């Protein structure tokens, strides 16, 4: 057995205490704002709890109710996955496109950058309401213009087939956040690499594929991962769009159809709210919250794994 010198032990203890002291703010924040809520959510997912009276053990009943009997769970999950796949992909592609445009444009670049960034600053509720009015199939200017050109006029937020594409349009309109980070990444690509590629005879596509993409791939990965997490938490815009389009925008205490039209704008965060605060079923709300957490973790893990391969391959 090795004998440790008492002085060494004291130094190690002091070092450990110092490390703990430096880590303590993070540990405190992690414990209070992440570990405790997560443990509490797990705990409540097995309890019958209405938020008013003390929780009672409920076994797997909440889990079984959410997966088998709660009518909104599967539609909300399908909608959220649709948005994750379609909306995130389009936002990344469009954000990159706009980023390329505003870095290349020579005339009034500041004006273009401001023009594309400004919509991102619009409050989500106001922006959504404006979009619902613009895309109103009966009175909105969008369909009036389409009509002038003899094109088909979708029902947008009033049509279950078009409501998610309409939400995607809204998300593309507010592309300013992605435009800024892509623009920064694109401006950071070394110019000499483009010059070397040009000397080697690379055309615009080849330069984009073999110079631009490898240089901005970490930013692309960041955009996709944060986009997926944000879309998993997509709440305000679909809720407001559904309520405004269905005509129920006022009257406290008034009942309204979740996910109008035909549950097509129902997302997972909305059903957490519906269960926890409208049906007073905190246990089932916690089940859905855990499912959302697990999905976010899974998506992030897959993207990070595949993304790290993508990054190393580009390197």
């Amino acid at each position: 057995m090795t004998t440790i010198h008492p002085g060494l032990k004291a130094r190690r203890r002091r070092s450990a205490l110092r490390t703990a002291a430096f880590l303590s703010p993070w540990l405190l924040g992690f414990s209070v704002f992440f570990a405790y809520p997560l443990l509490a959510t797990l705990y409540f997912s097995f309890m019958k709890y209405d938020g008013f009276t003390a929780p009672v053990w409920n076994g797997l009943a909440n889990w079984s109710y959410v997966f088998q009997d709660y009518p909104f769970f599967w539609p909300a999950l399908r909608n959220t996955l649709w948005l994750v796949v379609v909306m995130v992909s389009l936002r990344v592609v469009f954000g990159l496109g706009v980023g390329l445009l505003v870095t290349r444009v020579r005339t009034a670049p500041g004006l273009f950058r401001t023009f594309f960034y400004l919509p991102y600053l619009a409050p989500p509720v106001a922006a959504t309401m404006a979009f619902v009015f613009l895309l109103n199939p009966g009175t909105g200017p969008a369909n009036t213009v389409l009509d002038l050109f003899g094109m088909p006029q979708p029902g947008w937020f009033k049509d279950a087939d078009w409501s998610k594409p309409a939400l995607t349009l809204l998300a593309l309109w507010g592309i300013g956040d992605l435009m800024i980070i892509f623009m920064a990444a694109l401006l950071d690509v070394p110019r000499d690499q483009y010059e070397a590629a040009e000397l080697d005879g690379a055309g615009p596509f080849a330069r984009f594929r073999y110079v631009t993409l490898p240089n901005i791939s970490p930013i692309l990965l960041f955009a996709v991962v944060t986009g997926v997490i944000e879309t998993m938490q997509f709440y305000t815009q679909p809720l407001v769009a559904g309520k405004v389009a269905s005509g129920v925008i006022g009257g406290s205490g008034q009942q309204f159809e979740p996910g109008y039209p035909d549950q097509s704008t129902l997302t997972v965060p909305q059903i957490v709210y519906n269960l926890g605060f409208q049906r007073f079923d905190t246990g089932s709300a916690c089940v859905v919250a855990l499912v959302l957490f697990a999905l976010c973790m899974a998506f992030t893990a897959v993207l990070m794994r595949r993304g790290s391969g993508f990054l190393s391959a580009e390197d």
Partner: protein
Amino acid sequence: MPGHPRAARSRSGRTRRAPYARTAALAAVTAVCLLAGACTGSSGGGAQDDPDAETTLTFWHGWSAPSEVEAIDANIEAFEEKHPNITVKTVKNVSDDKLNQALRAGGGDSPDVVSSFATDNVGRFCAANALADLKPFLAKSGIDPAKTFPKPMLDYTQYEGKRCTLPLLGDAYGLYYNKDAFAKAGIEAPPKTFSEFDEVAKKLTKEKGDSYSQLGFMPNYHGYESTVEHFGAQFGVDYFDADGRAANASDPGMKALFTWQRELVDALGGFEKLERHRSTFGDEWGAKHPFHTGQVAMQLDGEWRGKMAKEAGADFEIGTAPLPVPDGQEDSYGKGYLSGTVVGVASSSPRQNAAWELVRFLTTDTNAVVDFANAIHNVPSTLAAMKSPRLNEDPDYRTFVKIAQHPGSRHAPGSVNGAAYLLTLQDLGYAYESGREKSLDAGLRKADRQIDKDLAQAG
């Protein structure tokens, strides 16, 4: 040494399992205590306070319009004059979500008296003891609820015999109609049965291309106020059987309701065409409401609509009447759907006796109720206030006061999961009117199963 070897010995060879186990046990107990502590925000409370002592009460309400806030503040001032030892701190524009959270959390800043527009949540408030039982207070004050409040309002302010709220003004629903459009169509009086209503709606409907220049009535369930709950009051639906199980599939009134609505949708041009027309409507709470603009000639709505239409500059004469009743039930004509604001005392309040004095004043003082009803154009919620000569004499308003007094008027029954069962039926309505649900019987059976499952989960 028993147990897993990795747990039994540390690198230094000392036994570490017992301290780890103790630490883990301590952490587990702490976590459970924290979790349990987090769940018990509201206590049963007790009325031990002296109502004559100097007290400050906190009153949360949802009114936000300047005229409404002014009116409730005037009532509070009158209360403070009558009870100089009690000061009331009011918090306006409180949504039901905030209210729920405050009642859940309790604590020093939580309200003593709360009011809510969501009558559908009374079941949960009562069942969970979030609001105090008012029966002992009523008995102590010598107030007989049956002789003080209209029966339908008494019904929707209690749940399974537990009275945790009282009505603070009400909303009655009836029929608004465009008298000019009636005259042009040669219609002399508002319809009293749904057959007459359908005929009138068809006569008033003027088609224009693939839309309408004037629609008799918007029957679609997304039309403003066209809900199963509102129509249900006219058809006398009960929603549940005596055992509390959903009984809509076996309720002839519910079948009649869905059938009537669907037939009217078809008769007025079909679901798609009506939906297209609906998409041209302005906001329900704005000046461009379709009744104000003449886009629809008849509107199911509460007592506020007439005042709103006049303020919006509607350029036609407005008529009011009760909503029709099913054929063969003409003797029940005059009834309607009732709702309103409810007020109660938070169970967590340490000042329940003083809080009761405020609730008692607001809900039973005839002058306070009449003044408040006149000011915010709601229906009064006591029998005495309804008969008061000081009550607004506007004949359109009086139509709704009469509806509120009708013994057949009703609200949908309370439930432990709020309006969930009504939304399930409303969902069936969307599916049935659009043709997605072909069989009404099958749809109602499915809705009943869903309602029972939801109630079992929430109960």
